[in-house]
């Protein structure tokens, strides 16, 4: 499957396609795979146990995973996973 990773706030890597060898994964599976097999700022955003570093957020298709199923959110082909910070207004 191919997902799109989108990183901004800490550093920038906008809308990058990433191929994962996973079937019907949850977000937890995807994050583990990203940490293990793909370069990225994962340590700045995620702790070892996949909880978030302070001030960081993960969105799936534009929504904070806290309003979805958190780490158990199902990920589908083409989904966009955003890693960013709790920015504040404009």
């Amino acid at each position, binding site marked *: 499957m191919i997902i799109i990773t989108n990183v901004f706030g800490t550093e920038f890597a906008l809308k990058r396609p990433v191929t994962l060898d996973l079937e019907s994964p949850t977000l937890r599976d995807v994050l583990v795979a990203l940490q293990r097999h793909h370069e990225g700022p994962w340590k700045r955003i995620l702790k070892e146990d996949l909880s978030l570093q302070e001030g960081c957020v993960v969105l799936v298709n534009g*929504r904070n995973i806290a309003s979805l199923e958190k780490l158990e959110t199902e990920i589908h082909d083409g989904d966009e996973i955003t890693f960013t910070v*709790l*920015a504040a207004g404009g």
Partner: protein
Amino acid sequence: MKGFCGKLLEIDLTSGKTKNTTISDEIVEKYLGGRGLGARLLTDMVPAKTDPLSPENVLIFLTGPLTATMVPGSSKFVVITKSPLTHGWCDSYSSGRISVELKKVGYDGMVIRGKSNYPCYLRFDSKGVELREANLIWGRDSFETEKMLRESEGEAPVGVSSIGPAGEKLCRFACINSDLYRQAARGGVGAVMGSKNLKAIVVKGKKEVDLHDRKRLIELNRENYQRAKKSVVAQARMKYGTPLTLNITHTGGILPTKNFQFGTWEKALGKIDSVGVYKSTISHKACLSCFTHCGMITRVSEGKYKGSELEGPEYETLGMFGSNQLIDDLPAIIQANILCDKLGLDTISTGNVIGFIMECFERELISSKETEGVEIRFGDSEASLAAIEMIAYRQGFGDILAEGVKAVSERIGKDSDRFAMHVKGMEFPAYEPRGAFGSALSYAVSPRGACHRRAWPPAKEILGNYPPYTVEGKAEMVKGLYDENCILHSLLVCDMPAKFIPLSQDDYSKYFEAVTGEPVSKEDFRIIADRIETLIKMFNVREGFTRKDDTLPYRTLHEPLPDGPAKGQFIGEENLNRMLDEYYELREWDRLGIPKEETLKKYQL
């Protein structure tokens, strides 16, 4: 009370007379300063149904108890008046040295009434107040005006606020400019200043603000500075500024695109977002009295606008002149921003009005015959820049555009009101509410019209744990956000450091006590916020606003968003009504949105 000067300067421009008005400690305890004090003053000073551009309207500049202290974000002031754009309540915030100089000259603020019979500017220092002829600066832009006035004052720091040609021409969304790049932008405060024939205000102070416990204040700042250094959010904000928000709104599907037709715009990425702006950034800048430098100075390095430089553009300008007009040319947006600042226009309302007229062109509701041959079409930055000048000088069709999007749509007719994006006559800022239902409520109930400063729901609905496409719990969420910012805007401090360091109400209680010597609790703050918001509501009720004004444009209510994560979403009358009912109930207002008798008694109003 320490921190406060305890008096306001009142100037009647008709008679040229001035007087001092005492602000009692009791008033400060009830309303703090800034927005709260302004609510009391405007209600008491402006008779009902006053024409906002008449001499009877007042223009109130206010600071707050924390202004001109070392508290982060404390060089803010608010301009309060009856809005010529909405004919209701208006509070418009800005950073600027004038806030600090006002305190240093011994005033918490000033009230300007009447109308001078000649173009003038107001100058005061510890020796007294003078009204001076403004012949040399009238007609000049805000940048020239400020530079000339600063030069005439010599080396010493001086606060200068001025209007540009748009304010002189009574454009209903004209701003007041300070320190070149900072604006009290919204609601037409610049037009009210222009209606009084007042071009500028120059203030030069000497005194230091009397602080209760300076040592404690320094200690709190040291602690909070360390927190900011460790905060990933503060660091991101100081590095990338507000343009970072564009990446968030695009990702969340709430980036206004093509006059709020769409919620995402891929072409913005890398060009007019934080990545694009960062590439053009040459330095960072902090406001006076703030250790968080979230401002950015950008410079255009090549092309037609090579050498153009400004503090900005902020997210709002990127949204309203960028995605909302389908312009992905950052140098052109920087140019638009400079032009608006110089001519004295609110970039939000100006960008919104131009986006609206672009849609009218696209739908063939209007042609170049009516716009002096200028075709104002999506994606055309040259036309957009031309429109800015037409609006500021009220040239040709610009005379109509200068009245605001509501008035323009009424003039054009043909159901164009369905996509005239405003609330109560004030133009939407750069958040598409169909992708975050709390934003819809926040816009609808805002007493000054569509406003992003009273609450920032995307923090909860895109970045937080509130599901965005439901009305469930949104009234409570919005009230909480409103109350939080009401206190910050009354103290009066910038709400940005509060969000990104972050600082809680407990932190501000500590600052308040260090400055004034008076303890204040979270519960006190809640009561004060309820009192202030209820009083402001009463002001608008008095001016004839009803529940029907707490509404949203047809597009927001009925047209499904066609793209992005929020595809298919729209607010709907039923949802809006439910949120309004719940919000009014939490405020202890009746079902028509009118504060109940017992509520007025409870808050001693």
